[in-house]
């Protein structure tokens, strides 16, 4: 009799815990939008384990929402479609302005800068010599490589250049190395990722002003407690070796808390003038 009672109690506990667990999962479901800086499969491979860990640590359910291209992504966050979103520094300015997105965390280990490369044996020694020269860029709105670079060249150095958009950072470097453009805009990380044979043919002529890297931001409709919970979970996870390894693939080597103040200087750089809309 006692055994039967014990079995009933255990069964009840099991059923209740299952129901509770089920109930807990459906309690808060959020979407995360990620800027399509890599092709989708790679993007998901990077983000999937991170999101799983966040779910474990916060108890929320996250759904990664992909965007085929950057303009589509921009339209989505401008429409406030994502609860959370990982976006570039320029995006956060626009997202904050339109939807009030709030930065939660960012990489504290570095500053984002655009680099201007020329051929190693190029006679050009100073950025000012690029006036009325052909300069390659990946795309008009690529933040560091194109948007900020063009703003810098024009605003800070008063240059008029003829941009040539060649789709990718690698194409920029190849165009410069093969003499198809006098100079090219890129970022240090993509430059370093090029094969040595290409890197060895290039030199950095100029670096743009620095800006805080991509933040993970939250839509203001997300409950503040939940936002904080996510932020804490992220920061705690980043403190672990596993978290550091996973997050560095985003890339976010050293996660720190972020705020709009980090991105405020950019607002004064007048990048909108150089932003090209379809």
């Amino acid at each position, binding site marked *: 009799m006692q055994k039967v009672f014990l079995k009933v109690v255990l069964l009840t506990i099991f059923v209740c815990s299952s129901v509770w667990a089920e109930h807990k999962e459906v309690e808060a479901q959020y979407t995360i939008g990620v800027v399509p800086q890599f092709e989708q499969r790679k993007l998901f491979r990077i983000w999937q384990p991170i999101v799983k860990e966040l779910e474990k640590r916060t108890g929320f359910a996250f759904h990664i929402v992909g965007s085929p291209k950057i303009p589509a992504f921009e339209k989505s966050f401008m429409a406030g479609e994502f609860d959370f979103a990982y976006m570039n520094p320029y995006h956060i300015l626009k997202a904050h302005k339109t939807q009030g997105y709030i930065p939660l965390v960012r990489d504290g280990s570095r500053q984002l800068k655009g680099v201007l490369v020329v051929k190693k044996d190029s006679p050009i020694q100073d950025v000012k010599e690029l006036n009325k020269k052909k300069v390659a860029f990946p795309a008009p709105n690529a933040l560091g490589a194109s948007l900020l670079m063009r703003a810098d060249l024009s605003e800070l150095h008063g240059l008029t250049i003829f941009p040539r958009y060649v*789709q990718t950072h690698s194409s920029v470097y*190849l165009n410069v190395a093969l003499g198809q453009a006098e100079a090219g805009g890129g970022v240090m990380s993509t430059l370093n990722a090029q094969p040595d044979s290409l890197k060895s043919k290039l030199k950095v002529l100029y670096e743009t002003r620095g800006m805080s890297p991509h933040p993970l931001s939250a839509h203001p409709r997300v409950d503040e407690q939940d936002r904080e919970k996510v932020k804490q979970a992220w920061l705690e996870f980043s403190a672990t070796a596993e978290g550091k390894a996973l997050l560095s693939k985003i890339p976010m080597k050293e996660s720190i808390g972020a705020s709009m103040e980090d991105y405020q200087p950019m607002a004064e750089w007048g990048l909108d003038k150089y932003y090209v809309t379809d």
Partner: protein
Amino acid sequence: MKLRTKFIAVLMLLTLMFMGYMHLFWLDSMKSRVVELVETQYKSHLHTTAEGLVPLLLENQLANVYETLNAHADDNPNWLQLTLTTTSGSRLYPLDEPSLLPSTYNTLTILQDVGFLDPPLARLSVVIDISPSVKVIDDLEYDLGIAFSLIMLCFLLGICLEIELFVRRPLNRLVKASGALMKGNYKYPIQKSQNDEIGELTNYFIEMREALHDHHINLKEEIHQHKNKADKLATLKEESDYQAAHDPLTGLINRRKFEELLHEAFLRVIKDSERHVLLYLDLDRFKKVNDSCGHEAGDKLLKEVVTLIQGSIREHDVFARLGGDEFALILRDCSHNGAVKVGNKIIDEVERYKFYWEGQFFSIGVSIGASDFEYDIEDEKKWLNRADMACYMAKGAGRGCLKSYEPEVV
């Protein structure tokens, strides 16, 4: 060079010529065709590649261009060098100046314009290693060489066998039969086996040999007959000569022959200074026997006297019957005294001789005239004449004696 060697040499030469033709002309043209085929195939491939590059180049997407061309280069390990240049000649691909290819490669270079306008967007050039394709041809040549060599070997053996059986051996038999025929052998075995030209030749040879054989037999017969005839004629001539030179009764040489021999002796005396003495003999009282007893008795008497005289002279002396009961004798290498002795001996022998005929005995004698050779004798007739004269003198001196020729006496 033997027939077999000649045939093999010709076949070997033909084989070598064919192999040479195959290597120098046929395979060369095959190689060209294969290269053309490969070129067409790669041109088509390169055309497609170039089309794919057009949109990328229009947007200067060199990274994608590199990705595409790298992929093509990876997919085609026999593309030794792939370059993309602008129309002005600037290199777009690869990043580094391509190194020079070793000359050991068998390459094919194909150029392809990128874009459909003139001038094109860029120019694609690919150096392709066609060694595998060329190797296929080389392998093919090797395999064909082996196969052909085997076929030619079989062919060669077949022809050799055929030539050996149907040409060389029958001809060799004919050669041996001819050789044997030359040596007079008409029986060397030879077969009539084939119905071809050699068979015909063999048949004709056999017929010819048989004809020769028959002819040979007839000829031999004829020669034999001629030889017999000639032998008979020679015998007859010998007999005739003998009869012409000899006296049929006594067997001594006759006057004509004697004169010949005397002439020879005369010449030898003059030339070689030999010394001969001529005796002229005349039987005494022979006529009496002949007349009283008949010719038969006379003949018998003559035979017996000749035999008697022959016993008194040397073998090499010449003894002849000049006619009737007259005889002559050349005593060779003889002195006058020696001749006188021989003559006297003959006289004595004849004097002692008694002829018996039908119960009666008859005595006869002989008168002999001797003549030495003197240098005033012009010819043999004179010499004989002198001996005759001396004999006449002996007769005149009472018969049964020997008288030498003395000119003062005469």
